[in-house]
């Protein structure tokens, strides 16, 4: 994790000259706004309240409290082993936790009565290792959950998938299999796959950590664009450039706890805590 591996995020875009020069960024940009209106809730989109988690005797999360409001981009950073990935996996209950409470759009996720598959279908997640389904074509990767979970027809699901694929600049690869794409392309497909479910919030778990340095930019560009369109996002990443540019809130974690949180300027510019300062100086150099 050296500073030299951190590519600059493209600056405020001249109309997104992004990613494989996707033609028609205009019309597809509307795709995200066509989602059904979010039911009005008073609370934040994600509320993490006093969450603690143990693996046996070892405590991985200690009393974590933070929240993500609608339209907000929260970046969680911190050294490896600080529990940030574990925390984000708790949000859609991929990891259980023993103490505290997490609500997503007003629904308590640890509640036994909560229909987890239904809740998860509304929370998009992007993984460090992409996790595309290698035995399915890109088209099928994008349409599988739409058909099985949302009950869309094959035609509808494939059209939606194709439109999102165009959005991330990979329409020409629809017939291929994941193994035939580069890491950056696979991660962009994974983002499209999550977006195809019309999520109310997107979780990113170190989306660029497994990529070759030259591919980090293309994935960050897609994320920046997504953030600009108003998507609610919780992002675990080491890309402080991304945090500085698009985050509304930066949360710094260390040893399973949240050390401090604030605007990028506060946390990255003038951190109050010594631990944050030493982390930043190590990362930025």
């Amino acid at each position: 994790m050296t500073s030299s591996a951190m590519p600059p995020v493209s600056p405020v875009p001249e109309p997104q000259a992004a990613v494989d020069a996707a033609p028609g960024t205009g019309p597809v940009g509307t795709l995200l706004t066509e989602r059904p209106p979010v039911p009005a809730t008073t609370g934040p989109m994600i509320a993490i309240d006093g969450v603690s988690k143990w693996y046996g005797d070892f405590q991985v999360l200690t009393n974590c409290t933070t929240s993500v409001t609608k339209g907000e981009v929260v970046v969680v950073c911190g050294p490896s082993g600080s529990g940030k990935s574990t925390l984000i996996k708790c949000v859609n209950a991929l990891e259980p936790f023993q103490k505290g409470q997490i609500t997503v759009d007003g629904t308590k996720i640890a509640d036994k009565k909560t229909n987890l598959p239904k809740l998860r279908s509304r929370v998009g997640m992007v993984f460090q290792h992409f996790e595309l389904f290698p035995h399915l074509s890109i088209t099928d990767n994008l349409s599988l959950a739409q058909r099985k979970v949302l009950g869309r027809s094959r035609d509808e699901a494939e059209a939606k998938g194709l439109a999102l694929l165009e959005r991330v600049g990979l329409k020409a690869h629809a017939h291929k299999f994941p193994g035939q794409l580069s890491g950056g392309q696979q991660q962009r497909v994974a983002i499209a796959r999550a977006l195809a479910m019309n999520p109310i919030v997107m979780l990113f778990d170190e989306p660029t950590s497994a990529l070759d340095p030259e591919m980090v930019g293309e994935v960050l560009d897609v994320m920046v664009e997504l953030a600009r369109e108003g998507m609610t996002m919780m992002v675990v990443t080491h890309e402080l450039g991304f945090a500085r540019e698009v985050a509304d809130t930066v949360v710094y974690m260390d040893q399973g706890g949240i050390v401090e949180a604030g605007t990028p300027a506060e946390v990255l510019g003038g951190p109050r805590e010594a631990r944050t300062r030493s982390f930043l100086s190590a990362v930025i150099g």
Partner: protein
Amino acid sequence: MFSNFDFGVILNSWRYLFLDGMTFTLTLTALAAVGGVILGTLIAMMRLSGLPVLPQIAKVYVNFMRSLPLVLVIFWFYFLVPYIGQWIIGAERPIQVGAFSSSLITFTLFEAAYFSEIMRAGIQSIPKGQGAAASALGLTYWQSMGSVILPQAFRNMLPVLLTQTIVLFQDTSLVYVLSITDFLGAASKIAQRDGRLVEMYLFAAVVYFTVCFIASLLVRRLQRRVAIIR
């Protein structure tokens, strides 16, 4: 040394050997393999479910079946199943189970133990993240298994499953203990009727070898075709 052999016995009896004997052998192999893979997959899922009790039941079943000789299980089922059936239904007499049904049930249950271990390895060979990604998209456990995990596990394990099926094909010859006419049983009957033991058993060996050899070649070709691009 072959001068006093009479291979004409094969020509005279091929219809019986193949249309009766081999047809039975292949039918039993195919049905038991399909049944065994389905049941074995369910047992593997039980074993990996992480729920209480189910994994223990699966484990005991697999270890029990694998520690018994197949011939014993064939016998056991043939003589016991009618009584178990009687006990379950509460009938007055032991229910009649034909030799074919009995052998099919036996082979399915027996092979399921072996297939379950293969499928367990197959399921465990799929990275944990695949299941997590399926869950994160909102797929239920069964949808995730059916669309994401099992198709990949099955593909990874296909060569081993087919190899086990070739073993099953050879093992079906054990149904001779129930006086069923499978291929070897047919060959044996002709051999004893015509006093041509050496010729017939030699021929049976050549046929078994040929079938298994061709099958294993096909497995290798198939393996290349179904491999997942990574």
